[in-house]
């Protein structure tokens, strides 16, 4: 990295920068911020999906009929080497079976179904009260075993992220408190109501990755949050935590965009924030870390925003993972009569749910119920008129219309060169396109094709190597055989010559003898 860039990265948050494109969207956050946080009551059945995060499904570590305590490990991600899904309450495992889960594909997935016993009895907790003296590796171990994932919606395993990051020198921890999508207010409510927990989590994370300072980014309209966090920082007596207000332009809460806003630097393509000496975590993730370390509690609940014009009383709830979404909606006064669509996540990147019987998952930052007038009626797609609006709003500085054309014409190499992999799927281009082309869907398709192509190319490469090796072997055998044959021929020829010489010699001798006689 350039020497100026190191300085610039270390000064993250001192100056607020801009990123390319983006959209000014109506926030729609206030409607769900008026009522304080409340816990959802224990449901009749907890359905805990084993697919909760980026990567493959976890394996169930419990059997049907087994009794579990609250916080017991029930699922394990073998490829990450640790326990990652925990029982949200005490009770009996009723089944380990395939159930509808909340997933973009809409498919069923393996779930651990727990019938709560109503006691809500914790397992033996192992808090780490003197965390300030703890070894960073021990803190990371604690994070790993508590099933903590990025709670901003990407649900990338936090332990994986920290372990990757500390391979490089990390100087700054960035806590992302800017919910980029409209409607979502779970982080705002968290920072308002539990600022001390956020700050505690920040300090623990900072120690776990060996950073020297923390920057907490919040949106410019979060006045109450700013005050609450400042007070919490003061009472914690930590000078290394800085709170920065940034302008609300979608998608400023995206990791790469946030870092650009705070530093003016771009995370290199294919790289990570760690390349700039930074680690980015969501504020709710920090709170989960604080609970895991100081109280010993694994991640079994999260704050969910239940909102939209399709909900009677929008608000934020603290819900156990595995609670049916219908329970949360009921606690918010139910649906309005004109509800038409149920979305998990925000209006820009969220995906629709087929049913509200689906359980709350770690990624569920928001349940958005929309009415007919909020949503996009099915549009007739028109040809692209090259207006360039998509390029104007693209935060990755791509030319979406060009990419779209390349993907449709299956020009994969050109698409890859044009930065298809750099698309963050924020959906800005979809919103502004006058021809209503589903650009992001094409890009997702294109990306998966590129991945398949890369695998195929690798296989082809391997096959080629094998073929070449076989060819070389066959050639060698052939050459050896020919060599042997030639040697033999030569030997026979030599033999014949010797014979000839011998006969000649004999005939000479005979001739001499004849002369002598």
């Amino acid at each position, binding site marked *: 990295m350039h020497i100026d860039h190191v300085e610039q990265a270390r000064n993250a948050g001192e100056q607020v920068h801009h990123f390319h494109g983006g959209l000014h969207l109506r926030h729609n956050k206030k409607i769900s911020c008026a009522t304080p946080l409340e816990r959802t009551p224990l449901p009749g059945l907890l359905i805990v999906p084993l697919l909760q995060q980026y990567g493959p499904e976890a394996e169930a570590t419990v059997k049907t009929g087994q009794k579990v305590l609250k916080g017991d490990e029930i699922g394990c991600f073998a490829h990450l080497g640790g326990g990652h899904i925990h029982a949200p309450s005490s009770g009996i495992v009723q089944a380990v079976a395939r159930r509808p889960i909340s997933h973009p594909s809409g498919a069923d997935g393996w779930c651990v179904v727990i019938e709560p016993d109503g006691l809500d009895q914790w397992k033996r907790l192992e808090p780490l009260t003197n965390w300030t003296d703890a070894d960073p590796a021990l803190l990371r171990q604690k994070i790993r075993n508590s099933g903590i994932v990025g709670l901003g919606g990407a649900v990338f395993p936090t332990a994986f992220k920290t372990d990757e990051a500390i391979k490089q020198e990390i100087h700054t921890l960035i806590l992302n408190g800017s919910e980029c999508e409209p409607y979502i207010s779970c982080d705002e409510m968290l920072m308002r109501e539990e600022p001390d927990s956020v700050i505690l989590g920040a300090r623990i994370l900072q120690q776990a990755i060996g950073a020297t300072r923390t920057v907490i980014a919040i949106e410019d309209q979060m006045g109450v949050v700013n005050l609450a966090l400042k007070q919490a920082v003061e009472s914690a007596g930590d000078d290394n935590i800085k709170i920065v207000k940034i302008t609300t332009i979608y998608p400023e809460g995206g990791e790469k965009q946030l870092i650009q806003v705070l530093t003016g630097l771009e995370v*290199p393509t294919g790289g990570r924030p760690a390349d700039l000496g930074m680690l980015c975590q969501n504020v709710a993730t920090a709170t989960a870390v604080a609970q895991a370390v100081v109280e010993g509690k694994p991640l079994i609940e999260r704050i969910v925003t239940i909102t939209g014009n399709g909900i009677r009383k929008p608000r934020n709830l603290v819900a156990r993972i595995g609670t049916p979404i219908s329970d949360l909606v009921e606690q918010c006064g139910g649906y309005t009569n004109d509800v038409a669509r149920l979305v998990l996540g925000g*209006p820009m990147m969220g995906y*629709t749910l087929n049913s509200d019987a689906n359980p709350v998952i770690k990624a569920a930052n928001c349940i958005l119920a929309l009415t007919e007038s*909020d*949503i*996009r009626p099915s549009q007739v797609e028109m040809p692209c008129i090259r207006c*360039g609006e998509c390029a104007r709003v693209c935060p990755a500085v791509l030319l979406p219309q060009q990419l779209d054309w390349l993907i449709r014409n299956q020009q994969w190499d050109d698409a890859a060169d044009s930065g298809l992999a750099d698309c963050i799927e924020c959906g800005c281009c979809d919103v502004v396109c006058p*021809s209503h082309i589903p650009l992001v869907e094409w890009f997702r398709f294109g990306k998966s094709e590129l991945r398949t192509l890369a695998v195929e190319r690798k296989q082809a490469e391997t096959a080629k190597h094998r073929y070449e090796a076989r060819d070389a072997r066959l050639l060698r055998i052939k050459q050896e055989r020919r060599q042997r044959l030639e040697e033999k021929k030569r030997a026979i020829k030599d033999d014949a010559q010797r014979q000839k010489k011998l006969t000649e010699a004999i005939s000479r001798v005979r001739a001499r003898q004849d002369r002598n006689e």
Partner: protein
Amino acid sequence: MSRKFDPGVAPHFPPKLSVTGVMQEVLYALLPGIIAYTWFFGPGMLVQILLAVIFALLFETLMLKVRKLPLKRFLGDWSAVVTAVLFALCLPPLAPWWIALVGMLFAIVVAKHLYGGLGQNMFNPAMVGYAVVLISFPQVMALWLPPRSIASHSLTFGEMLNTIFTGSLSLGLSWDTISEATPLDAIRTSLASGRMVSEARQSPVFGDFGGLGWEWIANLYALGGFWLLWRRIISWHVPVMMIGSVVALGLVAYLVDPGSNPVPLQHVFSGALVLGAFFIATDPVTGCTSNRGRLIFGVGVGIITLSIRSWGGYPDGVAFGILLMNMAAPLIDRYTRPRIFGH
């Protein structure tokens, strides 16, 4: 009780714009200019617009049928109407009816659909149509009227219709009495006969900056252009660079040789410069997509327009400027690709 919902695709937002919406906004933005045109030169232009729109929709329907495309969706996009109106605004008000027929044939059938239809055409259809009739029928394309305030004989609506549909003038009228050179023509002919620009400007067809009447039409086109800018239908890059380059180069020429070059503002307020800058060169399909590309595109059109006006064989060069830069647009786009985030 659980409840089922229908699936849908993000973004969960009503769309902000549509192709139809864009085309309609362009038409709204042209209204002030069209009204001014009618005010100064009579209702002939309205007849030309009507004719062009009818022929455009006829050819569009025909081509959609031939190409087996949904009629409702593509006729409803209003793009053929925009092409027709822009084409008609370039015609002399008394042009015979078959000019619109030939123009629209080349605009809609050749330039648009034979190149692949909406979004695929390389050249601006309206300008292709105009270039074809300008080159093929130079005489009828030179039959311009003077502004009504200085006309020796003001044509009635009936006389106008008669001329457009029969090609001949009503009894007692001659082309010499009713037609008048455009300001750009006036300058060209007077320079050719060895006179100075200042002498040419003595002609009553001139106003304060450009041609009498023309300058007001240009003002109102610009007003529509500002509306489009404000509505974000177009970006500032092409109009500013196109007009800016004409003014800058025109200023240099004027300072070097004020005798044979008009003041630069006259260039702006004559001919199709303002119409072209805001409405035609900004056509997204045939222009550049990146902002840097649009800057180059605008400068290119400006330079070519001024060159044709100063040294070329035609009094105005906006159409040829745009068509030539249309050709260069893909190349410009290729070399003005922005740097991708993180690369």
